[in-house]
């Protein structure tokens, strides 16, 4: 349901609400550091429709559905987010139960993302020993993206330098060189990237080619805006729509219970 009174929200709020709607009750949601949109999205989904979700932050596993507020942390590595943990996934045996990660949902960014959803956190340049831009490193993404049931690429920018034809280095394998069996051919069990969400639009991956395909543009954004900001020829879905705006209820819960300090509004 749309409320005409909701017309004043930021693009990050729009992205968080859109992402929250993709998450299903029972999902195990793992969010890394410095990803405020997914951090807000998992909390919003947990409150609104996910009483059986598990939130995994900084190695701590929690279900906090009953809490009045699930505020975003003040800063990355704010250890206080683990205060409601029921257990720790890093108690000396991280990665020991990857066979069950099909229940997990993961979120990833990158310094480059290519048309097949491969992502790069290593750096930009030709020579690995002398990179033009040294990235932060792969964190746990090579392993997580190989095994989780599905994952979402979430970007803070949408530029031709970020969304490129081919990554200089790949730290997380998405759909490789394309095709629905790209992962299966390498024996990679996880379900792969599902969507790429940016400040301009949402893209999915075409069923036959696994090329990134424009699925919806955010309100006020044109298809040409997206094409101009993308470093590869973008397929356009024949079901292209405008991204649905947040409902009054979603925005109210987001602002009052998840993001009271306005991290997504600054």
């Amino acid at each position, binding site marked *: 349901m749309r409320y005409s009174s909701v017309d004043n929200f930021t693009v990050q709020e729009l992205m968080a609400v859109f992402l929250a709607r993709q998450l299903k009750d029972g999902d195990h949601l793992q969010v890394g550091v410095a990803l405020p949109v997914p951090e807000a999205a998992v909390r919003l989904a947990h409150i609104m429709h996910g009483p059986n979700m598990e939130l995994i932050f900084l190695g701590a596993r929690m279900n906090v559905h009953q809490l009045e507020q699930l505020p975003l942390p003040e800063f990355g*590595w704010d250890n*206080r987010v683990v205060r409601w943990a029921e257990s*720790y996934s890093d108690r000396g045996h991280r990665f020991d139960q990857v066979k069950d990660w099909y229940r997990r949902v993961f979120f990833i960014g990158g310094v480059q993302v290519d048309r097949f959803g491969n992502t790069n956190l*290593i750096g930009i340049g030709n020579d690995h020993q002398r990179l033009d831009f040294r990235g932060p490193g*792969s*964190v746990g993404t090579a*392993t997580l993206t190989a095994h989780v049931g599905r994952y979402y690429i979430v970007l803070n920018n949408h530029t031709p330098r970020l969304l490129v034809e081919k990554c200089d280095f790949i*730290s997380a394998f998405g759909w490789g060189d394309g095709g629905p069996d790209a992962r299966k051919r390498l024996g990679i069990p996880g379900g792969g990237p599902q969507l790429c969400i940016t400040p301009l639009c949402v893209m999915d991956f075409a069923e036959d080619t696994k090329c990134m395909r424009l699925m919806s543009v955010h309100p006020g954004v044109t298809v040409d805006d997206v094409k101009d900001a993308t470093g590869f020829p973008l397929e356009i879905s024949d079901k292209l729509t405008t991204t649905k705006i947040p409902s009054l209820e979603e925005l109210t819960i987001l602002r009052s219970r998840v993001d009271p300090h306005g991290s997504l509004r600054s």
Partner: protein
Amino acid sequence: MERQSVLATEDEVVNWIEDGMTIAIGEPAPMAMVRHIIRNRISGLTIIGSGIALDYLIAGGCVSKVISYYAGGGFGVAVAPSFRHAAQTGELEVWECDEGVLTSGLEATAKGLPFLPWRGGVGTSLPEVNKDLRVMEDPINGEILLAVPAIHIDVALLHASKADVYGNVQHQGGPGWIDLFLRRAANRVAVQVEKIIPNEEVRSDAWATTISNADAVIRAPYGAHPFYSRGHYVQDKKHLKLYVDAATLAVTGEQTYIEEYFRRHVYQTTSHIMYLEVIGITRLLSLHEY
């Protein structure tokens, strides 16, 4: 004969460390020992570590190679400044991996194996940019996997909540990130703790003991400052910003601020307790967890 205490000073532990060794830095960061390594001007180290703690050692001139899955900066800096600069100029060798690859190499060492297979990283550039990782065909089912060689550690330096003098360590709020992997792969492990507790307290809850037989226990209250220590304090954002800003300026050629930072916090102090005096009790007590 009496049971031997492993209570040690920063000096005793730093004497284990020689130029060129492989040293692991845990998380929460054992910053008292990190500062003591810089203070003693040890160099040529291979560091297994992450984030800004790793950056300190690089800025301090101690590191020639890093084994790291993550060197993020935080505070508006996506990549730790000294790490970024040293890696871009070729001064620093980066052994590229992710957490799953790294822990596989550490477990190989712990289990006395030459390598362990791992799936994460198949299809990525990791085996191209890190020649130690080999793409292999599994002899059972013919699957494509990475062979991760055993990663050896001379000394692992960790920070925890409490320990008795016999090296029984108990973390509050769970052990650090991959600390138990580091411990299992290390030849020697030294653990800084917020508090020394009686052996009776350890035995009252033996299941809470996360590390036994540590080779050294160092009493270091606020020893992870300016980072967090679970159950004790949060990170000191103001202080970290001071470091990140100084290190960021240093890589643009303006060395004054990082030199002043290290002079004041590392070289002009001789011990962790002196460092705490420089930081001051008002600041330290403001970092309570809740």
